[in-house]
């Protein structure tokens, strides 16, 4: 990765795709200029980033993992139709007197690829596939929501200066100081009681929307601070001055001049937010405010399975492994993304 250690914008036009060429530029004394016969291609920073990303093997592997996960999650109803099993179907007759799945390795077999849940007798594979769907949806939607709020607030704060900046900063501090879990514990059940009578069950979508809203409300602050910092460093640059001199309005400067220059760190934040939300969503199940039965959910599945780690380790293994791979893949992809978008950050 040594070829990525110099920002492309600071050197003369060159072809970073070809290692030889890069070496040539970095050590001009050793290589005669006559060898630089190749055509010089002009590339935008985005194209450069994409090229770097393509060459990163970690990024490739994690993207494949994530693509498979997304595909499986999207195809969940199809899988249910193919196997003929609904995720809530209970195969109680395949459990023994203690409620443990009969057979080897937690009841793994042709009918039940990953075995059965002890106690309930539900198919682990279908629970997992549908749970993945819920978890990924919550994580992506929350990350998107947090970023939209964060970017909007951050740009305004960074560009505004004066009292508005102070006010927004104060608000960010307050939000950061607010205990997330306690807020979630207090608000989710109350809102549910507010919108549903005692004889109505809250629809699964409502609970999921509440979780997404809570995540969004608490996680925009990091993006907002990052964006504000970036905007402050950019707003005095010549191209902003030029735009202002040319009579551009504030909106134009904010969203046409500044935003395109800071989308790289935003993308990285999103990619790092998603795994965090997957993990926190799983943690919500531990305090009884996660996704409720009977909607399948990865986090709740892990919570329920932890007690069985000694007696039916397979039940713990599959959801645990899934969430581990997901979070790891997202984190690695996020790192790779940051490296390729901002080569200065590599060690």
């Amino acid at each position: 990765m040594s070829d990525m250690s110099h920002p492309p914008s600071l050197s003369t036009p060159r072809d970073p795709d070809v290692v030889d060429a890069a070496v040539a530029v970095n050590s001009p004394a050793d290589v005669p200029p006559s060898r630089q016969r190749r055509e010089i291609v002009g590339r935008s920073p985005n194209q450069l980033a994409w090229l770097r990303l393509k060459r990163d093997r970690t990024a490739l592997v994690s993207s494949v993992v994530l693509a498979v996960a997304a595909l499986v999650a999207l195809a969940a109803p199809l899988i249910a139709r193919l196997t003929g099993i609904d995720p809530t179907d209970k195969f109680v007759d395949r459990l023994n007197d203690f409620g443990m799945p009969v057979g080897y390795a937690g009841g793994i077999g042709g009918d039940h690829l990953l075995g059965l849940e002890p106690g309930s007798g539900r198919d682990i594979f279908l629970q997992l596939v549908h749970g993945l769907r819920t978890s990924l949806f919550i994580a992506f939607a929350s990350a998107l929501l947090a970023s939209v709020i964060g970017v909007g607030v951050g740009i305004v704060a960074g560009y505004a200066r004066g009292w508005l900046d102070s006010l927004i900063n104060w608000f960010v501090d307050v939000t950061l100081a607010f205990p997330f879990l306690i807020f979630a514990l207090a608000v989710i059940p109350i809102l549910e009681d507010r919108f549903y009578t005692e004889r109505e069950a809250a629809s699964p979508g409502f609970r999921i929307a509440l979780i997404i809203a809570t995540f969004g409300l608490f996680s925009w602050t990091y993006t907002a601070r990052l964006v504000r910092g970036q905007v402050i460093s950019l707003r005095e640059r010549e191209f902003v001055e030029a735009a202002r001199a040319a009579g551009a309005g504030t909106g134009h400067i904010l969203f046409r001049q500044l935003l395109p220059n800071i989308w790289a760190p935003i993308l990285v934040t999103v990619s790092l937010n998603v795994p965090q939300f997957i993990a926190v969503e799983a943690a919500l199940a531990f305090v009884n405010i996660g996704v409720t039965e009977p909607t399948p959910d990865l986090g709740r599945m892990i919570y329920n399975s932890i007690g069985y780690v000694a007696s039916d380790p397979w039940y713990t293994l599959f959801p645990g492994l899934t969430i581990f791979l997901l979070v790891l893949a997202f984190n690695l992809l996020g790192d790779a993304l940051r490296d390729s978008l901002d080569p200065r950050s590599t060690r």
Partner: protein
Amino acid sequence: MRGRTRTLTCGVLAVALVAGGCTRTTDSGGGGEEKKTKTQTGSISYEAADNRGPAAAVDGATRGGTVTVMQVSDFEHLDPARNYVNVQQVTGGLLYRALNGYKENGSGQLLLVGDLATNPGKDVDGDCKVWEFTLRDGVKYEDGSPVTSRDVAYGIGRSFAPSLNEGPHYIQQWLYPGGVYNAAYKGPYDGGKPAPDGITTPDDRTIRFTFPQPHCDMPYAAALPTSAPVPAGKDTRDQYDLRPFSSGPYKVKSYQRDVALELERNPNWDPKTDPLRTAYPDGWRFTFGLESAQIAERLVADAPADQASMSWVDVPPAVLPRTTSGGVAERVVKGPTQYTWVLNINTQRVTDLNIRKALNYAVDKDAVLKAIGGQAAGSPATTLMSPTTAGFHQYDVFNAPISGDRAKVAELLAGKRPKLVLAHSNIELRTQQAEALRKNLTDMGFDIVMKPIENSSYYDEIGRKNNPYDLYIGGWGSDWPTGSTIIPPLYDGREIVAEGNNNLSYLNESAVSAEIDRIRKLPAAEQDAGWMALDEKIMRESVPVVPCYYDAAYELHGSKIGNTFLSDAYGILQANTIYVKQ
């Protein structure tokens, strides 16, 4: 920290996969063939041999050692006036002695004999209205002073106090029938009489109860902790919970709420006066605040420090498969308890008898049980009373297969699809159980709405008369092994109040109430059969519940605890004649 924990979890998982991953799980979880249901005779013994102290020695038992009891939560009350829960009653039995007590030896024989009293009570006029108890000679408190009948009367008197209202109220209600038990008399505090009307103490060793109506169950009621003696001079009112004045084999050494309770020997307890307790251990130590899985894992592991330990907490389902191998299996104490769990149908809302019958055909009792641990948690039920009740005989009104009878349900519902709200406690096990029910009933043709309720207020919520729910699971155990503490509190419509109901199906049928009155007036010997017949009549004609399962206890103890058996009177490991192997 986070990194460390995660590594550790992975390591544990890997080991577990190697250890337990490739063995085949067979159909019976272990001991599946053992399906005996004990039938309780619940006999009251006036035999001199049964009522004489000291208690029979246990073969191979040794004196000494300390028993550790690991518990999830602290006892709510140890004050005899407020003591109602089985674990508290067994612990209370180590500290103080009631008039009567249950004599058990592990063979399934349960005898009610005199504890403080020389026999289980004399029915003076033969009409169950006047009961006389004579106290044993030589029973002393921990300070060496003698126990008198006035202290017993005072103990019952203070149980009328509004601030000490958590205990059972049978004797109180019988002394003041009609209305609230303590409407007329509010205990000896604030200028009240030291003893309620109807209790007289002709001399220091005699106490006499005079009831306006006949109560042939008095010997059983006198076995509740209410009749334990409390000397007026030692009464600390609501602080008495923390340090009951000992009349039994042990006294409180230290008590730190929610952490630990330690008992040491009461040197003034004389084994010759006690037909129930051998009191082999030198001390007891109760530790609170442990997770049930943690307790079970420690007892399975049987490390040297935990070998003299036991627990009254049922082994959670996740740990059950690890209790079937040789060394652990012999340290399991299991058996039926006096609790029956039913799916209550709110009869105020579900008035259509056909729907209630359809529910009885629909419920998959196998799924309901397996969700909470299968046969270790209980066995499928068809009756209202548990098999441990006196006079029990099995009947099945509906004769549905264990996983439900779809054709019968469809016939009874006749094309309708009733919408029912199923309330459940929000702890993991009960949620799983409710989800099993939801899936099962939805498949059978009902529309089920699940409503989770915070666990600590579950019985408060469903105990409100106008609660908005249709179905909810609940368990009830008798206070003594006859139907008189099951059918009347659960199915007598006249006892329905605004809040705190036990009649959770809110069944209010005059025919049932009249039958209850009729059976209560029967001679004691005929009552058992009467309650059983009423049990079947309710299920046949009113169908207020779906009987789900007879509860079972499944407890573990360490390898150094001896003479371990399930107390039939309390449904948990007994404490009176247990010993520590030296």
